[in-house]
């Protein structure tokens, strides 16, 4: 089932709220279950299971191995475990947000929230161009190996500054061509068209969206009333 990007943003904000607020363990568990269910409905049962498993593991560790905090190691360890448990909801919310939402849906939602065109267009370009860049990075590393300029990928870490010169100069100097080509495509496909843009995936809120948004309100209210 598909969720509206607005709903996904609400969940991200809610997860941040829960992260910042001081909530009880019971609340935490309920919330993790809730996010997992959202992931299930969103079509990522695998991710939901993994997150539930991680949470249980962290919970288990914090009541067993790190029950007593006395020396430096247990302080660092328990800090990481408690912190990890804490940040898990925001990671789950992020997974929920990224998966199964198209760029065009985000664009449409951001436009509805009156985010200006000057922000939306660069954002679209980032989404479009980032995969190309990672591809370029792989090719540059290959080229460096053929040239004997590095012996392995690890050599890049040893000389980060030289590495950055090798990696960034070809990328930056090809930006001019890419910018011209992408601008032409963007213009000829009418992105500068004034007025409302629509999304092929629709942008109305469905029943499921209302349910999720309402439950989010309950979660926030519940923090004060029950917890």
């Amino acid at each position, binding site marked *: 089932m598909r969720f509206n990007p607005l709903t996904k943003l609400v969940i991200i904000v809610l997860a941040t709220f829960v992260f910042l607020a001081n909530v009880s363990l019971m609340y935490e568990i309920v919330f993790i279950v809730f996010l997992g269910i959202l992931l299930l409905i969103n079509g990522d049962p695998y991710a939901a299971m993994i997150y539930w498993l991680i949470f249980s593991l962290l919970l288990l560790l914090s009541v067993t191995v790190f029950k007593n905090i006395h020396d430096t190691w247990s302080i660092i360890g328990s800090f990481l475990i408690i912190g990890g448990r804490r940040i898990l909801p925001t990671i789950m919310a992020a997974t929920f947000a990224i998966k199964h939402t*198209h*760029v*065009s849906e985000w664009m*449409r939602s951001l436009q509805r929230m009156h985010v200006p065109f000057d922000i939306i267009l660069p954002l*679209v370009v980032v*989404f*479009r161009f980032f*995969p*190309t860049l990672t591809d*370029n990075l792989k*090719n*540059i590393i*290959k*080229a*460096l*190996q*053929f*040239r*004997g*300029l590095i*012996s392995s990928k690890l050599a890049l870490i040893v000389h980060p500054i030289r590495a950055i*010169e*090798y990696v960034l*100069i*070809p990328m930056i*100097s*090809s930006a001019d061509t*890419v910018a*011209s*080509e*992408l*601008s*032409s*495509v*963007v*213009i*000829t*496909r*009418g*992105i500068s*068209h004034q*007025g*409302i*843009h*629509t*999304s*092929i*995936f*629709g942008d109305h809120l469905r029943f499921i969206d209302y349910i999720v948004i309402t439950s989010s309100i309950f979660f926030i209210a519940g923090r004060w009333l029950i917890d």
Partner: protein
Amino acid sequence: MISLHKVNYSQNKNKILQDINLNIWPGEVTVLCGESGSGKSSVLNIISGLIPNLYGGNVTGEIRAHHEPLSFDDYASEIGMVFQNPKSQFINPDVYSELAFAMENVGMDQKTMIQRIDNVVNYYHAQDLLNRAMFDLSGGQRQMTALMSATMLKPPLYLLDEPSSNLDVTAIEQLRRQILDLKNEGSSVIIADHRLYYLIDLADQFVVIDNGHIKCQISRQEMRENATLLATKYRLRNLTAPRLRLTKTRIMRNLSDLITLEAHNLKFRYHCHESLIDIKSLELSNRDVIGISGENGAGKSTLIQLLTGMIKHHEGTILFNGQQLSRKQLVKNSFLVMQDVHLQLFFETVEKEISNGSRLTEQDRQLLESLKLTKLLKRHPQTLSGGEKQRVAIATALLSGKKIIVMDEPTSGMDYGNMQRLSSLIAHLKRAEILLIIVSHDQEFLNMTCSKVLIMNHGRITTVVTPDNMNGGIHND
């Protein structure tokens, strides 16, 4: 429908177009031909308005559409454009979104959009493309998607800039059919291309552009009757479909400069992909300039990565001059000239790039002279043209003593003149003590360059073509 009257275009005092007069009628296909740099793309960009609005420069003269001065307020619904480079022709990550993009931008309602996509996809039998990621498509599939997205708003005018330059024969045939459909629907189509064979039966007029001027306009009738004559007169090439017909012969070599590369029972598989290399026996030597061809996904790039040691093979042996080398040693002996050659140039001058810091010997300088690089030594490599960058990359390989040089699609985005120059450069290079392997789908280029071509299909070598054995050639349907 569209008329250009006494149009001139200049940029930084360079006169790019002069006195262009041109009429485009509804339902007609106009082909702009001429060598690269003749100004044929500029004519397209002036009609589209990208010149001067995006590319700058100074345009004078009159451009009218429907007897009215052209206004470009509503691009997407007036003009469908397809550009040359399939890699940078899309904005969305998947085909479905890409097709919808132009319609979304004019604010069409969801129902109409879905309906239109449905129609277009059925029309072009592209159902299997619909849910694919753009990055996974071949050049031909991307170009097809680009043309389909250009049709979504049913514009009356289409402008296609070198649409065939990165396509193989099958994809060009598909393109031809798509253009024919547009013509039959009554749209005007203007195409700038150096390949003409697929347009002969399609075009209503051919406009030959040379050095910024219109040299002549040829009607369809004239072209049919006097094709050969006109071709010679106006230096038009590619009037017939290319076939794999190798013209180069093998190179005589002494045993002392012989380089061999063999692979036996070579197998490779990505973790969970089905992409697979399965080669029983492969024997290559520098008696040939070797071409590797085959459809996208046939395993060409995987094979060359295996042969150059970039990735590790799972089974089998690779022998270099009869010896089994470690992967590192293979990498040390080989060099890949990439398609995006700018990604393999790292230094601030060509000289440093080539010498890697050491001094150039007299012999090195002779080599650079033969690669026509001497004048470019002080330039920054990234400021060079595509062909020049390729030559710099080749020079770095030769000067560092590489024995195997592989070129991956070296002619992509290249016009005919540069393609010929590259071919004669390779003819010159093959005298050196190196083994040259060229991966390309460009049959014309393979014809004039290679003496042996391996055709790959599903990770296997299905056919080996040599000058004497033509009947094994490519099946193009």
